[in-house]
């Protein structure tokens, strides 16, 4: 059977509109061109303790005990009435009797329909007081966590400074050159991590990313202060690294730089030879390459002279942890050690190829 057509389609349309507004689950108002209320949803009346039967024909500002008559709401509705689509949403504070200060998110929208002579406005009102309070509490908790994390980082850096100091004290008091060298290397490794912790403690988040150029520069300054005299014979420069990586990645990269730079300083320039050691970090998307290039005497050609020590093991282990490969190549002159991470899609469940193990340390000069 065909549906019966309404006698008057305008009345039918208005009736339908009023029914839609009245049944809206979210607090909703329909206003005419003079901002008088045509219809209010039951949810609006219930949320704001208003008798629905008394709303029709009244101005929104007249509702309740006058608490709706506030300049921000007038400004918002005036903007909507002017047809400016740029600012049709705002949050206003409303002091409600028995409820205190409430934060309302209000969206006022001019309806687009064929009867341009009689504009209508749909106003959605949401009480976001609790949501905003929750967000503020969450932001305060995050801020507190950040401060605590910075404090922990600061204390870790201090503790590492103490450990490094003790190692250096031991190095000063030992009569064995070899032992002294090991202790000094350990000192540099600890300082490498300590510097990272200091940088993290100074960052806004305390757990954020690390700017590699800054980190590598500090590391190299520290190593240079300990191992390079002020005679200008040797230079240590940092190139690239104008990017940020996570703390976890940066600690590994920092230790690799420490090992490779110490190794180059110890062995690449025998007999007071001069030269330059370059630490370079480049990246493209997820792929990156860290290289330490010296222009010294180069690696020995006799494999029997190449030994693997703790430094080699540390670099290999860290490279593997970073899913990177270590490559040693002649530097023309000198030696270039590169640690390269290439993001390769896995085939099925097969893991990425492990890092190739090669010796990094040279024979002592």
């Amino acid at each position: 059977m065909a549906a019966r057509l309404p006698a008057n389609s305008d009345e039918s349309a208005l009736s339908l509109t009023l029914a839609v507004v009245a049944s809206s689950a979210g607090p909703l108002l329909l206003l005419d061109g003079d901002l008088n209320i045509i219809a209010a949803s039951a949810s609006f009346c219930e949320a704001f303790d208003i008798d629905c039967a008394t709303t029709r024909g009244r101005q929104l500002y007249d509702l309740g005990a006058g608490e709706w008559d506030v300049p921000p709401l007038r400004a918002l509705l005036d903007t909507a009435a002017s047809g400016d689509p740029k600012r049709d949403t705002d949050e206003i504070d409303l002091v409600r009797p028995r409820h205190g200060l409430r934060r309302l998110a209000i969206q006022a929208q001019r309806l687009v329909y064929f009867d341009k002579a009689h504009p209508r406005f749909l106003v959605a009102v949401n009480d976001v007081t609790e949501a905003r309070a929750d967000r503020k509490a969450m932001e305060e908790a995050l801020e507190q966590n950040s401060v605590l994390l910075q404090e922990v980082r600061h204390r870790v850096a201090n503790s590492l400074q103490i450990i490094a100091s003790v190692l250096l004290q031991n190095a000063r008091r030992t009569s064995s050159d070899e032992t002294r060298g090991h202790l000094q290397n350990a000192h540099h490794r600890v300082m490498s991590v300590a510097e990272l912790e200091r940088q993290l403690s100074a960052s806004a988040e305390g757990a954020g990313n690390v700017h590699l150029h800054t980190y590598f520069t500090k590391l190299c300054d520290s190593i240079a202060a300990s191992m390079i005299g002020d005679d200008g014979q040797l230079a240590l420069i940092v190139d690239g690294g104008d990017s940020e990586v996570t703390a976890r990645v940066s600690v590994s990269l920092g230790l690799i730089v420490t090992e490779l730079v110490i190794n180059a300083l110890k062995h690449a320039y025998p007999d007071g030879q001069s030269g330059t050691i370059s630490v370079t970090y480049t990246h493209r998307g997820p792929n990156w390459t860290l290289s330490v290039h010296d222009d010294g005497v180069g690696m020995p050609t006799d494999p029997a002279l190449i030994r693997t020590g703790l430094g080699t093991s540390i670099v290999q282990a860290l490279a593997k942890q970073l899913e990177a490969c270590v490559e040693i190549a002649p530097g023309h002159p000198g030696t270039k050690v590169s640690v390269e991470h290439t993001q390769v899609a896995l085939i099925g469940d097969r893991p990425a190829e492990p890092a190739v193990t090669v010796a990094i340390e040279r024979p002592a000069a």
Partner: protein
Amino acid sequence: MSPSERATHPGTTLLIVEDEILAAMALKDELEDAGYHVLDLTGRHQEAVAAARDRHPDLALVNIQLQGRDDGIEVAVELKAMGIPVLFISGQISRAQSAKTVAVGSLPKPYSPIEMVRAVNYLLRHLKGDESLPCPAALEVFDHPQPGTAPAPEPAA
């Protein structure tokens, strides 16, 4: 460290005010090796001020966090009043920055003792207007008039 850095500094006395005794010991050894005379280590405000009053060191290396509730910035204020320049040696960089007017510089932790020797070498010369040494990268110098170097204030009318 080069021979020039190991050169003795006769009559140059330093005060280390640091609550971490092991870090302070390593620092003292390195500075003494570099030829400086380092006063007895202390991590307390009153001890530091008393030592400074008795011996008037040429430079005081002051950590900001000291033993108990003692505060290195408060120590620095008193040392500055005595005409003793202060180098902050703290990881609390923002606090050191906020107290620039009472110190001549800051070398934040973590530092190696050798870096500290270079910073001290530089600062002692810098304070006399001698710029013959390069400024260590990790050292931040707070350039402003120091006690004894500032022009005398106008007498009150």
